[in-house]
């Protein structure tokens, strides 16, 4: 039975999540049944020729994969050739040709067991996407940028994608994604990532959704011994966004670093859920999320750390801080620690607050406008986080995008 048939079977045992499910209590998509009908009633996803190509935020010489509505646009991309030991292909191609996939790395290997309702649904549709593999021992000499564009043809259209990313042992890759979509559509994105022994992946996702666009994303990562997964989430748009990041630390000495910068728009909603499952001894995780929430906006952070009985010497750290830009802004933060080993170090913390009126007055009395003063304090709030990003051009781009967005959000939030 194919993975999509299995996923379709799984769906029969799942119900659509709603506010009664703990994981979905802050964010649910009651209209999804309606979206789904559009999909399954003879309106298959059309894949238009790409009329436009946004400029990439990175000046560096990078490999670029342009993906429109899940389909790799080879003619618009600049892909690594075979001699590099890195393969970037359509997922369907990788499944059909023989060079493809060891059983442990087949599509659905992670998501059939761990995927939520929407991930099962994406697989059941046979969602297209990318297959990326870095061969054993290869350290990618350039960044790989995935430029994702969701181009809807009708309102309430759902665009599912499914990427499968495999780093073999001792492989290393820096992967950055820009995700764009506008109009009243929804991106439903599933990514399965396998990191073999001592593999290293630096993964940045820059979400630049339009104001009416929705997104449900699940990234599932399985880490083997001494592998390193660093993830940076920049949530800079969208009407309602739900990101789920699930990391299974299967091998000893696996290290996971999750960083998030969350900037929901006025009246918009962004939900980040993380789960780090420490399954082996001597594994470490470090999570740092910051939210800056505009007028009537909502940020949700739910960080779960699960330590298996045998996972001694686990070292887990989690911190979420939010700065509310207006009295009507909302931040919901919930750490969940479930620890079944007795020799571990797990810490967590969360803060929420507004800027201090005395600080703003002091700055104004030296000649700065209220917006300038607020922005300077807000940028200070996120600076150390941005400074820790890999690569000068990514850092600079994020600094600039964040400043521009804060400027707009402040004008609307004062």
């Amino acid at each position, binding site marked *: 039975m194919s993975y999509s048939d299995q996923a379709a079977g799984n769906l029969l045992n799942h119900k659509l999540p709603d506010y009664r499910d703990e994981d979905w209590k802050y964010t649910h998509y009651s209209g999804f049944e309606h979206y789904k009908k559009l999909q399954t009633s003879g309106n298959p996803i059309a894949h238009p020729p790409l009329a436009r190509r946004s400029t990439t935020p990175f000046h560096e010489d990078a490999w670029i994969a342009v993906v429109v509505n899940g389909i790799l646009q080879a003619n618009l991309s600049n892909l690594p050739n075979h001699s590099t030991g890195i393969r970037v292909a359509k997922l369907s191609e990788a499944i059909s040709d023989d060079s493809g996939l060891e059983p442990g790395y087949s599509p659905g290997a992670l998501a059939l067991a761990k995927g939520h309702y929407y991930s099962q649904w994406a697989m059941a549709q046979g969602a297209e996407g990318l297959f990326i593999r870095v061969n054993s021992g290869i350290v990618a000499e350039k960044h790989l940028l995935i430029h994702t564009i969701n181009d809807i043809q009708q309102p309430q259209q759902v665009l599912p994608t499914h990427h499968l990313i495999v780093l073999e042992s001792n492989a290393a890759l820096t992967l950055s994604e820009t995700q764009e979509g506008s109009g009243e559509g929804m991106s439903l994105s599933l990514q399965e990532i396998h990191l073999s022994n001592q593999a290293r992946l630096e993964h940045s996702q820059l979400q630049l959704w339009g104001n009416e666009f929705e997104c449900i994303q699940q990234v599932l990562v399985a880490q083997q011994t001494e592998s390193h997964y660093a993830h940076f989430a920049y949530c800079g748009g969208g009407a309602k966004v739900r990101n789920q990041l699930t990391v299974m630390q299967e091998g000893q000495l696996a290290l996971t670093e999750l960083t998030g910068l969350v900037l929901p728009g006025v009246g918009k909603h962004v939900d980040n859920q993380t789960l780090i499952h420490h399954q082996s001894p001597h594994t470490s995780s470090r999570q740092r999320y910051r939210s800056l929430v505009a007028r009537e906006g909502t940020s949700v952070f739910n960080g779960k750390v699960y330590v298996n009985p045998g996972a001694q010497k686990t070292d887990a750290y989690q911190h979420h801080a939010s700065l509310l830009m207006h009295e009507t802004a909302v931040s919901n933060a919930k750490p969940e620690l479930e620890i079944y080993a007795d020799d571990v170090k797990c810490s967590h913390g969360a803060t929420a607050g507004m800027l201090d*009126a*005395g*600080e703003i*007055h*002091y*700055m*104004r*009395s*030296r*000649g*700065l*406008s*209220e917006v*300038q003063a607020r922005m*300077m*304090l807000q940028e*200070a*709030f996120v*600076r*150390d986080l941005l400074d820790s990003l890999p690569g000068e051009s990514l850092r600079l781009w994020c600094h600039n995008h964040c400043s521009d967005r804060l400027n707009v959000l402040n004008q609307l939030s004062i």
Partner: protein
Amino acid sequence: MLLEIENLRASIEGKEILKGVNLSVPAGEVHAIMGPNGSGKSTLSSVIAGKDGYETSGSIRFDGQEISDWEPEIRAREGMFLAFQYPVELPGVGLSSFLRACVNERRKHIGQSELDASSFLALMREKAALVELSQDLIRRPVNQGFSGGEKKRNEIFQMAMLDPRMAILDETDSGLDIDALRIVAEGVNKLRNPQRSLLVITHYQRLLEYIVPDRVHVLIDGAIVMSGDRTLALALEEKGYDLVRAEQEVSS
């Protein structure tokens, strides 16, 4: 007249603090305001600088312009400076980038070109030396981890950077030890010039030994009840507010 205040009243949460203040400070002069605790000294400085939250009436004219309705940043860009009694810490905001933004806003406002990085740095070095502020402090976030004395010196350093026409020093001497008081006062004296006026608010006459005022005003219960030359400050220190006030009433 650089600063002219007429019948200034201010109340906060229904409580009247200033009850008709009249005060004129000509360009180039140093005026001191003394008064007991709770007489409204800090409120007066806050209201002149444009702090939110007060209900005010009356008139504040700065170089002939009525500024009562101006936002605090516009007053600052026009050349009004308030050295805070309790300087505020700005977590994570670097002192030099903060000051560069402030200085350039003021320069833009008065039609001067913005300073580039190297001329700004040179200016900072020069002005930091005035109050013996170390380069290490300049690299830190504003007032974060500064001692009480360093915070006060930092206020005078910022004053020097912003080159104001009118500076109000709100109890700049409080919390300073003798050496720090001397350093701060010497810094202020170097900034005196015929165009710049100072309004020095203090409890004690000691600061006025260093920064010698042209006029001394006594603020009691929200109004200026006496004015005189510097000898008034000496008399106050010797005899206390009540006695000096009583003597004045008798003689008038």
